[in-house]
């Protein structure tokens, strides 16, 4: 355990050093986070400005969902994109060899090796938006509610991570799976709005097949104090299940790894 923590420290401090070699990149990423957020707020504002409502969600409540989405998107830019996005290249160029020969869990290495600080503004903006919008929507969350929301947010991060890792792991067989991860990222965009805003067919799809509902709507409902125990349990179960699935699939995939030729 201590070795993993120390490794994580070495991983992230070297990633940070690496990112700081290219300061212009920092500025671009920051602008892109702010641009995305502004764009989403404008779309929502246009919608509510015409007196529509979104699947029974008020303007402020919908902003909470947007906040959760922004938070997850920041998490994606900080950890998922830099790490899981690199797996395909590891497989294609054969540098996965070096990972597999280290006496450390290869899934841990591949999932935690890089850390991009440029997603952190998104994380902070997301947290701020969740808090402000929830207060304006009239919620005064108690400590247990906050803890529950935190737990659900961790679950949604885990679900998203596992799905992405599963897709990236299939690169062992198919090598190029960038398209698949793009599809995942664009599906996540659907999570900017409450899931009940979508037609029933899509709603089912987003709950059962692509767990968009668990990613954003469920944690948002939690902080607004409207979630029910079954949803919490379902979310928890979904997270553990998808994590276990990603792990099992990775182990299975490694049996088929042939390593790029020299």
């Amino acid at each position, binding site marked *: 355990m201590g*070795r993993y923590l*120390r*490794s994580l*420290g*070495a*991983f992230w*401090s*070297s990633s940070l*050093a*690496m990112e700081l*070699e*290219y300061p212009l990149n920092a500025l671009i990423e920051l602008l892109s986070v702010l641009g995305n957020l502004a764009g989403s707020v404008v779309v929502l504002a246009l919608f509510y400005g015409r007196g529509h409502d979104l699947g029974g969600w008020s303007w402020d409540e919908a902003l909470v969902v947007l906040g959760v989405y922004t938070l997850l998107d920041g998490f994606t830019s900080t950890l998922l994109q830099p790490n899981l996005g690199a797996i395909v290249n590891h497989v294609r*160029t*054969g*540098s996965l*060899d*070096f990972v*597999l*020969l*280290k*006496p*450390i869990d290869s899934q841990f*290495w591949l999932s935690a090796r890089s850390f991009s600080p440029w997603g952190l503004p998104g994380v902070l903006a997301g947290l701020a938006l969740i808090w402000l919008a929830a207060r304006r929507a009239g919620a005064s969350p108690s400590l247990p509610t906050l803890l529950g929301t935190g737990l659900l947010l961790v679950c949604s991060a885990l679900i998203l991570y596992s799905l992405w890792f599963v897709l990236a792991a299939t690169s062992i067989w198919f090598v190029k799976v960038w398209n698949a991860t793009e599809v995942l990222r664009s599906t996540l965009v659907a999570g900017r709005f409450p899931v009940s805003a979508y037609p029933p067919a899509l709603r089912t799809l987003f709950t059962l097949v692509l767990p968009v509902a668990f990613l954003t709507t469920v944690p948002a409902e939690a902080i607004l104090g409207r979630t029910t125990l079954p949803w919490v349990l379902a979310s928890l179960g979904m997270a553990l299940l998808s994590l276990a699935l990603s792990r099992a699939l990775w182990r299975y995939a490694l*049996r088929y*790894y*042939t*390593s790029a*030729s*020299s």
Partner: protein
Amino acid sequence: MAIIEVRGLGKSFRVADKQPGLGGTLRHFFARRLKDIPAVRDVSFSIEPGEVVGFLGANGAGKTTTLKMLTGLIEPSAGAVEVAGFRPFRRQASFLRTITLVMGQKQQLIWDLPPLDSLRVNAAVYGIPEPEARRRIEELAEMLELGEELRRPVRKLSLGQRMKAELLAALLHRPSVLFLDEPTLGLDVNAQVRVREFLADYNRRTGATVLLTSHYMGDITALCQRVLLIHQGRLFYDGSLQELTQRLAPYREVCCDLAAPYPPEAFAGFGELESLTGQRLRLLVSREQLTATISRLLSSFPVLDLEVNDPPVEEIIGRLFREGAVG
């Protein structure tokens, strides 16, 4: 007790069988035909602790595939491998701490950062306490003649410096079995010599076992008392380097730049004509006749430049198989 034990090792790869052209591509997309290609067949050998063994073979002979099975990267299709008492493909942490793999054409150092940052990561991953890691880095850096290069971004290092830093990173955990795949690839002669000297020194100091592939005969002659020769996936020769060089060494390669073009017939009686492109001549000359041939060349032709080399391993091996000296 052998440290590397290989019995009847085999590996075949399932590859796509695609016809060229659009028609072939379409057919391949809809009905993928696969076939099994044997890369390594029934290879057996054993290596004692502390041995430095050269692993020779043409491109595609199966060297890298065998190394990957020995390091546990890929699973053998047949046979058994044991390295330091472990079955490599299980990749237990204690096995991975015992071995290292250096690949001349791949690198593990972080491109944009100085080698020291990558070394810190490796120290953490292998659980080497920081003071101990510092001591080891210092010791290895001295052996490798690396100094402030360790503080410069890897992308700004020369190929030779980078390779030495790669070696440092690969040896930080003090492995006792070293697998080196073309560790001197692309290095200039000086850098090659330094890497060789380092490897010999490391082997002497630590008693580590080394299995090394190389295209440069010089690496093999400088380091290995014993060689394994692999051809089309099969082991063709396992024995002392001396015995092998006795069969091969009669030949040296003489390259000349001539001041004027000559027909190939002009070089009859000067050994075996390997190639003649424009005014550049390459001859294979037996060792006993080397000096005599060179002085005759110099007196008979307007020679601008002349060098004498060991023929490349590929050439030697090709010759070996043509002459049926092995097999």
